């Protein structure tokens, strides 16, 4: 009779083999979930769950019900997940240690060991998405290959992990490593960038205010050309309008607009300012759209913070101030708007936002605080002469009331 430990080990490696076989035979798995085994039966009966059988599902016949797969959706029994993790971890640690010991990686034995590392690191990151060492081992092996398909495979694996662990820092970072390497090898990344943007939007839909996801999208901007930046601005508008509390999406738009502005400023330096009008129009449209949203969705902090940014940069780049002769950047821009007129319009907006109805008391209160904060924040950031002018425009009584409101959440009375 075999000792108990050996039987256990055999069972564990059998479980791992089955898992790795499923992953191997269906490279298009696009969802993974840890579910209680009792749910498997329900899934079997569910006509909505689809019915196409595959090589991977055939592999499960005669199995002990640890896995469930259909239509590229994989379910792992929550009862085996710890054992599976331990088995995958052990196999991985042994394989990578051996791989690193190899001197000559061109030998066939190195090739074979590399395949084992890829196989068990895949199982491991699916079970433990932030197991950095497993992701690293994949980078190590992929970096020694030349086939472009390996990069696409890595993007697919990372997307699969992100589909159920959308905040996994390692999975996001792995994508950036892949993209950086693709950029080194290719002339254009346009299609990849588009797909990455779509992926972020898809993940952001399910995982609200996901900093890692949006940070990834912001990171992509540096690889985009002007045309693509403008395209992105158009494309992300609908999503932003439907998710007005998601500050990250508005920050993304901010990033795109700043990038357009930078391009424009560079051209100015080179003496050709043909895009100035275009930037002006984009900006105007964004301010109008933001105002619309502010009036439709009361008391949304994200919308008001976005307006702070839009207005401040607008003032810095497009307004003329008779008292200010110090800004050389402005003088180069062919479009000059009177700052006084601009601030009058903003005051009008703030005033209209302080007149709400009693039915929506809480939202109305938020809206009033946000609008007062917006105005006073702006007075702090603009040049001194404009600041005095603006303060004069706000009547004393009203200013006191605004300061009081702001001190509820922002800086104290005396600091503004």
């Amino acid at each position, binding site marked *: 009779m075999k000792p108990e430990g050996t039987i256990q080990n055999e069972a564990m490696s059998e479980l791992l083999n089955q898992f790795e076989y499923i992953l191997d035979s269906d490279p298009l798995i696009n969802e993974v979930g840890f579910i209680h085994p009792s749910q498997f039966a329900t899934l079997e009966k569910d006509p909505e769950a689809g019915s196409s059988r595959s090589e991977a599902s055939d592999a499960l016949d005669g199995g002990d019900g640890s896995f469930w797969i259909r239509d590229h959706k994989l379910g792992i029994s929550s009862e085996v*997940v*710890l054992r599976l993790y331990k088995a995958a971890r052990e196999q991985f640690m042994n394989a990578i240690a051996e791989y690193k010991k190899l001197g000559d990686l061109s030998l066939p034995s190195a090739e074979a060991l590399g395949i084992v590392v890829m196989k068990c690191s895949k199982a491991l990151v699916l079970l433990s998405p932030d197991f950095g060492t497993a992701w690293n081992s994949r980078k190590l092996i992929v970096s020694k290959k030349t086939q472009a398909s390996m990069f696409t495979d890595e993007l697919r694996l990372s997307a699969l992990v992100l589909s159920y662990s959308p905040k996994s820092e390692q999975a996001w970072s792995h994508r950036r490593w892949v993209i950086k390497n693709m950029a080194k090898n290719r002339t254009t990344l346009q299609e990849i960038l588009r797909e990455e943007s779509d992926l972020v939007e898809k993940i952001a839909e399910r995982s609200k205010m996901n*900093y890692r996801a949006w*940070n990834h999208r*912001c990171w992509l901007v540096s690889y985009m050309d002007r045309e693509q930046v403008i395209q992105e601005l158009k494309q992300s508008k609908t999503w932003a309008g439907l998710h007005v509390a*998601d500050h990250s999406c508005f920050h993304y738009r901010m990033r795109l607009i700043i990038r357009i502005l930078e391009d424009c400023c560079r051209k100015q330096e080179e003496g050709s300012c043909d895009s100035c009008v275009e930037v002006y129009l984009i900006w105007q449209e964004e301010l109008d759209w933001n105002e619309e949203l502010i009036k439709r969705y009361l008391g949304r902090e994200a919308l008001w913070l976005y307006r702070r940014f839009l207005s401040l940069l607008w003032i810095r780049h497009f307004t003329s101030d008779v008292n200010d002769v110090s800004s050389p950047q402005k003088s180069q821009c062919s479009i000059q708007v009177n700052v006084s007129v601009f601030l009058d319009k903003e005051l009008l907006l703030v005033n209209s936002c302080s007149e709400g109805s009693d039915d929506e008391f809480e939202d109305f209160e938020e809206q009033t605080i946000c609008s007062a904060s917006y105005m006073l924040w702006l007075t702090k950031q603009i040049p001194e002469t404009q600041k005095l002018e603006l303060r004069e425009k706000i009547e004393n009584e009203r200013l006191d009331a605004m300061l009081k409101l702001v001190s509820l959440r922002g800086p104290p009375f005396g600091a503004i």
Partner: protein
Amino acid sequence: MGELAADKHVKYILAVEKRKDNFESAVLEHLRMNGAYWGLTTLDLLGKLDAVDSNEIIEWILKCQHESGGFAGNVGHDPHILYTLSAIQVLALFDKLNVLDVDKVSTCILDESDIAGLQNEDGSFSGDIWGEVDTRFSYIAICGLSILKCLDKINVERAVNYIISCRNVDGGFGCTPGGESHAGQIFCCVAALAITGALHYVDKDLLGWWLCERQVKSGGLNGRPEKLPDVCYSWWVLSSLTMIDRVHWISKEKLIKFILNCQDTENGGISDRPDDAVDIFHTYFGVAGLSLLEYPGVKAVDPAYALPVDVVDRIFFGK
């Protein structure tokens, strides 16, 4: 309002290591070094560091060190700058920095044409050889090297310039240039600037405004606009406000109350929000936040080095 259940928290931290063999704990093995830092710093802030066997811990830490000089999050894992700082900090807590080969550790962070050097041309820092860049890594490199007293070996000016390039219109900082402001990243950037004597680059009123708007009605702090409050921001936001001298812009009383409401007064530990499950990460940030709020019975913590003030004094003044 309850009081800080300090004894319960000490018991909770000591018990975490002996927790059940479950999947949720198993998948956290890669960041055990961070866990050690959170747990042990909390014990020290509560005056109970002597409840653990320091030799055993130091032996384990050294097992996590790689040939390159960097530390892994656990034995057998790859090294990363994230765990290297935690290792240095824990050794500092035990006054055992002398077990380190300072040259070796600092070389893995520096750019001395060593392949493992992590500072990049633009002054930024990578987390490991795979090249991910983040202002968190800038902080870690600066804080770690400062503790090891070899900050003068890096190009501080370039490192500072990179951090400044990650500053946003709202006064906050992100992971990389153009990245969204986040209270955690702000802590890293402000602390790195504080350590390098470059806080004059921060517009304190502008950043202070953004930071104090993180306090929500319940008294807790969030890390970004429109998010729910979370105890960990009692550290990230509060330490930043402390460094730029704007703590009086928020209500300390309400924040203390929020943190205390997140305690598990029966079994110890602190959670992200009232009635959630506790963990070691939030236990540390809750206690460290209370320390910055000068709560009685908690030792003072240094807002930039994230270590007890007496430990920092010992490092720099040999007290």
